[in-house]
C-alpha cells in the first residue's frame, strides 16, 4: 500500500497521542514515589531522633512540626536559587547585559542569603520551643550527620558521572 503524506501524518499524530500521556504518567509516577520516599525518610529520622532524645509522643510531634516547616521553606529557597542561577547564566552569556541587571541579580542573591539566615534563626527559635538546649545540640548533630550522608551520596553520583 502506498503511504500518502496524509497517512503518514495520521501515524505521526497517533504516536504523539500515545507518547505524551505515557511520558506524563511516568513522570507522575516518579514524582509520587519521590514524595513517598521523602516522607518515609523524614519519619524514620524523626523516630530515631525521638528515641535518642527520649522524646514522648507530644515532643516528637512538636519536633516533626518544626522539621516539616523547615523542609518546605528550605525547598522554596532552593527553588529561588535555581531560578536565580539560570537568570545569572543567561546574563553572563549575553554580552549586552547591562551592569544594572547584574546588580539587580546580585542584590537578589544577597537577599536570598539574608532570607536563609533569617530562616536559620527561626528554626533555632522553633527548636528551642520543642527541645531542651542539650536535646537541641544533639539534634543539630544528628541533622548534620544526615546531611553529610546526603552530600556523600551526591558526591558518589558525581564520581560515577566522571569529568564533564
Amino acid at each position, binding site marked *: 500500500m502506498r503511504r500518502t503524506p496524509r497517512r503518514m501524518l495520521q501515524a505521526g499524530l497517533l504516536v504523539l497521542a500515545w507518547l505524551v500521556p505515557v511520558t506524563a504518567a511516568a513522570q507522575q509516577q516518579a514524582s509520587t514515589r519521590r514524595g513517598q520516599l521523602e516522607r518515609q525518610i523524614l519519619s524514620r529520622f524523626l523516630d530515631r531522633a525521638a528515641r535518642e532524645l527520649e522524646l514522648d509522643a507530644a515532643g516528637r510531634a512538636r519536633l516533626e512540626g518544626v522539621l516539616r516547616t523547615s*523542609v518546605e521553606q528550605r525547598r522554596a529557597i532552593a527553588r529561588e536559587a535555581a531560578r536565580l542561577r539560570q537568570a545569572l547564566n543567561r546574563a553572563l552569556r549575553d554580552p549586552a547585559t547591562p551592569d544594572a541587571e547584574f546588580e539587580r541579580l546580585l542584590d537578589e542573591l544577597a537577599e536570598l542569603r539574608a532570607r536563609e539566615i533569617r530562616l536559620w534563626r527561626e528554626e533555632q527559635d522553633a527548636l528551642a520551643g520543642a527541645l531542651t538546649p542539650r536535646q537541641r545540640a544533639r539534634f543539630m548533630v544528628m541533622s548534620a550527620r544526615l546531611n553529610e550522608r546526603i552530600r556523600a*551520596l551526591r558526591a558518589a553520583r558525581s564520581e560515577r558521572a566522571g569529568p564533564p
Partner: protein
Amino acid sequence: MSAMDCETARDLLPLLRGAGLSARDRAGLEAHIAGCEGCRAEAELLAMLRRTPATPPAGLVERILDALPARRPRQRRAVGLLALAATLAGAVLVGKGVVQDLLDADAPGGPAASADLPAELLQPFWPGDDELAAGIAPALHQLSVDELEVLLAELES
C-alpha cells in the same frame, strides 16, 4: 533596650539596606555600628561591594564558555511528514520536561543540574547548598529517587 553584640550585628548587616529589619533591630544595629569600629568596617565593606558594578573579570565568560560542550549544528533537511510528526512529539515532550524542571527546580536533574554553567562552578554562591546555612532540614531534594531508596534502607537498618 539592651546593646546589640557584634555577632548579632554582623548577622543583621546584610539586611541593613533592604526592608528586612524591624525598626527596633535597625535602631539597635545603627547604634552598634556607630560605636563599633570593626562592625562599621564590615558595613562599609558590604556597602562598597553593593556599589561595585558586577562586571565579570576579563576572560571569565570565555573560559566558562570554552568549558561547555559544543552545540550541535541545526539540522535543516526535511525528512518527511512522519519525521515532522516525530519532531513535534519530541518538542512537546522536551517542552513538558522544561516546564516540569521549572516546577520542580530543586529536583536532581532540574535546572540546578542542567543549567548552562556547570553547577559546581558557581556552587559556593548559591543559597541552599551551603554547609553553614544548611539548617536542620535534610536536603532530600538534592537526591535522586535511587539515592532516596538507599538512604531509606540505611535509616531502617
